[in-house]
């Protein structure tokens, strides 16, 4: 495997950079926030992402996608991290696309993957039920009811939940396995409560009370649904790690620019050794996170059986480093770093939220120790 981006990936990255700078810069997030938008993202932006071909990055060509894989999706998300772009890309184009690919039947793939590629739907991925990520504890149940199911339970902090058209819900089936169910977000028996979070995103909590589902709601194309779900979550962790990396890289670049310019005692504060050592340490940590993120994404594409360890390590390190980049950024910006006017605080806040989603550094370190057998 190569750590260097190939030509196609470089083009994708460059076009993502240019498109996001134009269409979805940090000011777009501020606008959504200040307008108290109740969707949590821009539907127009989501439609433009389909025109760019991004929504089909993980969708096979036969279903209308471009099938470029996890690494390509990660490189786009990394750029979105840099611009703090709020969008359903992770939930729909990565998690849902991976779920249908890995666990969907042929009919489900034909029904849903083209819609994802065309951005005709926004699908949120509903996994967690507690405050901290814990996919091993799913209490939501789906019980057989005639040809269909009855869904009962609750999900918390579902990313993109407020504006989603459909949900992929992880629920226990009667055989003790965990299945993924595709559920219309406005089905009878569903209560949706939007929850504004620190990063100005708008996830939602869901309560399911005897929600009646058709028989084809259960993704039943995988031999082992638990293994498929685990792989979907690994893909999500690597993708989120890529976004967190972008957050960290941009926070770092802006901080370096600032300490080059800002003068105190008659000279740039970046000339002081106290600042230089903090900056150089952060740079070194960023280099480590970068390597793990690329390694995890490539491993998902090339040798998926080895992916779990690398995905957990990448998510843990990217979480830690993006938080560090944000906090060091605020420290080095000084007083203005604490103001809402400056963007550095927005990076710190997104780092925290992206870090928490699908397991923070502590959770993923636990996974690394379990996967390594100690």
């Amino acid at each position, binding site marked *: 495997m*190569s*750590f*260097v981006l190939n030509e196609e990936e470089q083009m994708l990255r460059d076009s993502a950079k240019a498109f996001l700078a134009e269409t979805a810069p940090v000011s777009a997030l501020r606008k959504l926030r200040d307008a108290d938008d109740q969707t949590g993202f821009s539907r127009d932006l989501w439609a433009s992402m389909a025109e760019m071909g991004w929504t089909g990055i993980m969708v096979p060509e036969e279903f209308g996608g471009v099938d470029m894989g996890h690494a390509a999706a990660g490189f786009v998300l990394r750029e979105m991290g840099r611009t703090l772009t709020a969008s359903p890309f992770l939930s729909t184009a990565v998690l849902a696309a991976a779920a249908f690919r890995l666990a969907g039947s042929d009919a489900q793939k034909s029904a849903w993957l083209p819609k994802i590629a065309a951005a005709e739907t926004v699908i949120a991925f509903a996994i967690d039920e507690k405050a901290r990520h814990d996919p091993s504890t799913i209490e939501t149940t789906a019980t057989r009811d005639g040809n269909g199911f009855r869904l009962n339970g609750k999900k918390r902090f579902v990313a993109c939940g407020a504006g989603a058209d459909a949900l992929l819900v992880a629920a226990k089936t009667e055989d003790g396995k965990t299945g993924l169910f595709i559920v219309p977000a406005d089905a009878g028996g569903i209560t949706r409560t939007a929850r504004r979070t620190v990063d100005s995103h708008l996830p939602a909590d869901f309560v399911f009370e005897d929600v009646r589902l058709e028989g084809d709601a259960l993704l039943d194309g995988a031999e082992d649904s638990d293994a498929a779900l685990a792989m979907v979550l690994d893909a999500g962790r690597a993708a989120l790690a890529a976004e967190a990396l972008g957050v960290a890289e941009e926070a770092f670049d802006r901080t*370096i620019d600032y*300490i*080059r310019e800002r003068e105190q005692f008659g*000279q*740039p504060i*970046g*000339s*002081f*050794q106290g*600042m*230089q*050592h903090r*900056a*150089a*340490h952060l*740079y*070194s940590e960023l*280099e*480590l*996170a*970068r*390597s*793990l993120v*690329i*390694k995890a994404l490539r491993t998902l594409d090339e040798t998926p059986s080895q992916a779990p*360890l*690398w995905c957990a*390590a990448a998510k*843990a*390190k990217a979480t830690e480093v993006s938080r560090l980049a944000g906090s060091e950024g605020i420290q080095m910006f000084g007083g203005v770093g604490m103001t809402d006017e400056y963007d550095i605080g927005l990076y710190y806040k997104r780092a925290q939220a992206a870090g928490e989603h699908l397991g923070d550094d*502590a959770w*993923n*370190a*636990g996974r*690394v*120790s379990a996967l*390594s*057998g*100690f």
Partner: protein
Amino acid sequence: MSLETFRAETRAWLEANCPPSMREPVRSEADAYWGGRNAEFASEDQKRWFEAMVEKGWTVPAWPKEYGGAGLSKDEAFVLKDEMKAIKARSPLSSFGIWMLGPALLKYGSDEQKAEHLPKIARGEIRWCQGYSEPGAGSDLASLRTKGVLDGDTYTVNGQKVWTSYADKADWIFALVRTEADAPKHLGISFMLIDMEAGGVSTKPILLISGRSPFCETFFDDAKVPASNVVGKPGQGWEIAKYLLSHERAGIVSEANFGGLNPVSAAHRSGEVDPEGRIADPILRAETAKLTIDALAFEATLRRVKDEADSGEGVGARASMLKYVGTELNKRRNVLNMSALGSDGLLWEGDDGAPARDWLRSRANSIEGGTSEIQLNILAKRVLELPGG
């Protein structure tokens, strides 16, 4: 030959030629073979393994064949390293000649110097040491004062070096000597090759906190050195020294990353594991998980930097990042090893004492070859391009 064919052939050759005892972790200094005029093998297996590797040119796989190497491409050399790591094969020859002097000679040496010295390094015939630091010149290395005065075609060298690793066991020393008394600080230094048996050179080991003496003081009292033993031009020594230091840094990190005790094996050794074989103490387990993540990250970063260097971005000052990260990581690993060993880690004698001595030795990782603080200075200036202060 395709890389996959090379891999298969390399694997088969290693399988046939690397004795089982040479696949066990290096436990003490005696387990490494350093070569030199007075070298002795610790075992028949060590000798067999060394000779087989010399024969293949694999003590210096990427060097040209005429200088004792195998002329491997970078990719092939990586495959060889990979395959050696896979069977935990020991390095057949530990050598400052290979890690440090060789690359500098390949770049700056005259044809005569290369033909004279490189094959002897490759075959482990001459053991080299490095004479850089002085009592008054540590991090501020360029203020060094060991002096060489040219008379005819011979320099007379006087002065003192310190922290010369294994100088008491070395045959030759490559040293930085001030030869141009009137030149500015950085431009008055020459890079000299000095035969330590030729008279006027003496060494004295320094006892360290580890109870070992890997470093020496080295004294020059009217040592006579032919002018033809200056590498590059007189006054070019600082440039060569900097080039060599980046290889030294790479050497330090690759050593730090290679095998040895880790907190998991340490906990098994001391019995501090739970019935499932996990590290018993949950906080120590968490610290070990974080160390593991950083070790994976470091391993991936070494690969990435290599990939990027190959695609034209070069390593450059990022060698300082690798040195900083790799050495701090190794110190952390040793601290956690000690914690996992508990009171067993406090033992001092024989093989039992190795972990404590390694732990103490590791404290030098972030001092030697440029301190961590110097690496951060270099990164700030040359990679981040922050303004000078």
